[in-house]
């Protein structure tokens, strides 16, 4: 029988379940020890504060442990852990945030959808999103897309994105958002029938 240290993450979990998921199982220590540094690093870059990062990291691992029985045997533990880490960071941020950061001129003019979404505006939003996706693919650099994803999908604060992606310019992620929006604005203006663009 191979030493526990030589087992893969997935094998450790499989054996842990096979032993009845008992508290204090050495396999979980080994599994978690492998991943403490990367989750700690992610949390530290996300929060920018080591105390908060330690709280968040602890919550993530306890959450992982709690749901180990729902881990699919054919999946990779690292991708599962990454998904939980990212979701938990997002939830943590949402729980403490009143409104998303807003500081820039809009690319798309506000419509009735701002106040009361109806079937028409929902359709309009979907259609625009499809076209915007294409514009992003055509006009943006990968790093700009990454910053935009973290900002708009993960709703991550700009300082966190700056730390997470190691952006070293003076204004960090904000500069990438500004440049991406300028590019999208220009691309939308060039595109026939593009989104309503602010001139």
């Amino acid at each position, binding site marked *: 029988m191979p030493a526990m240290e030589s087992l893969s993450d997935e094998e450790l979990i499989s054996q842990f379940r096979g032993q009845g998921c*008992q*508290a*204090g199982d050495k396999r*979980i*220590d080994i599994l*978690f*020890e492998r991943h*403490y*540094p*990367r989750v*700690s*690093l*992610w*949390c*530290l*870059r996300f929060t920018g*504060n*080591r105390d*908060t990062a*330690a709280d968040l*990291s*602890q919550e993530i*691992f*306890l959450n992982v*442990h709690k749901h180990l029985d729902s881990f699919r045997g054919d*999946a*990779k533990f*690292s*991708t599962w852990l*990454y998904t939980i*880490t*990212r979701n938990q960071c997002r939830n943590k941020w949402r729980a*403490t945030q*009143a409104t998303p950061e*807003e*500081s820039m*001129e*809009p690319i*798309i*003019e*506000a*419509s009735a*959808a*701002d106040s009361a979404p109806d079937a028409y505006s929902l359709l309009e*939003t*979907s259609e*625009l*999103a499809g076209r*915007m*996706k294409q514009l*992003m*693919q055509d006009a943006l650099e*990968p790093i700009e*897309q*990454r910053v935009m*994803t*973290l900002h708009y*999908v993960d709703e991550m*604060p700009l300082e966190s994105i700056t730390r997470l*992606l190691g952006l070293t310019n003076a204004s960090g992620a904000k500069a990438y958002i500004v440049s991406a929006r300028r590019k999208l604005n220009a691309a939308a203006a060039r595109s026939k029938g593009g989104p309503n663009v602010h001139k």
Partner: protein
Amino acid sequence: MSTSNWEREVMRRALEQTADCPVLDELTAESRSVVVEAHLKSCAHCQNELALFSEFSTADVRPQEAGDVSWVAVKTAERVKAALSPAPWWKTIFAPQFVKQASFGMAALLMVASGAFYASRTSTEPAFPSETPTASTLRASSIQLIEPLEDINSTPSSFQWEEFTNCSDYQVIVSEVDRMQIWSSRTTKSGMPIPEQLKKQVLPGKTLLWKVIAYDAAGKQLAESETRKFRVAVK
């Protein structure tokens, strides 16, 4: 002019996962299928996911963050091990389920003892001692904040929280939503008036965070509340 919620929604939808996107395991597979490879080339979302996962799994620790990363990893390991280690036998006797069972058992014993006592009231035998565990033997693990919480109509006049047993004093910490601390003070009571200096920073529509930490007489931290937010409504 602020970014519209509508634009935010369009951006979010443009960048989020669609039904066609493969799961992360397929994207990170050593040999991707032709279909997944073709999808990846044309999907910004999947390209981003792959890049961010790579950032998570292979990122190098920068020299200036090495100390903090190591500290967070050690703290996490300590806390997770403590939380997951089997409880010692003496702690299990205070577990709620055991206390409940013990209470039933004790009640039954008391009834038997009472019957025996009344049956032999002339006897000089000592009475059966009662040792039913009480709620006070169970200690709360955190401090419960009372007010202000969430959206409120006017500037609060004080912070209030539930008293924490055996605590010598409390520290109240107020911070901005980005966790930048803007005010802190200590008190021996389970409440504290909000000073004018802080009230000036409680602006309508602006969210602030607060928490309370309890210390014993030696200055050792006993417990900490959750960090909660509050915001005064814009009129």
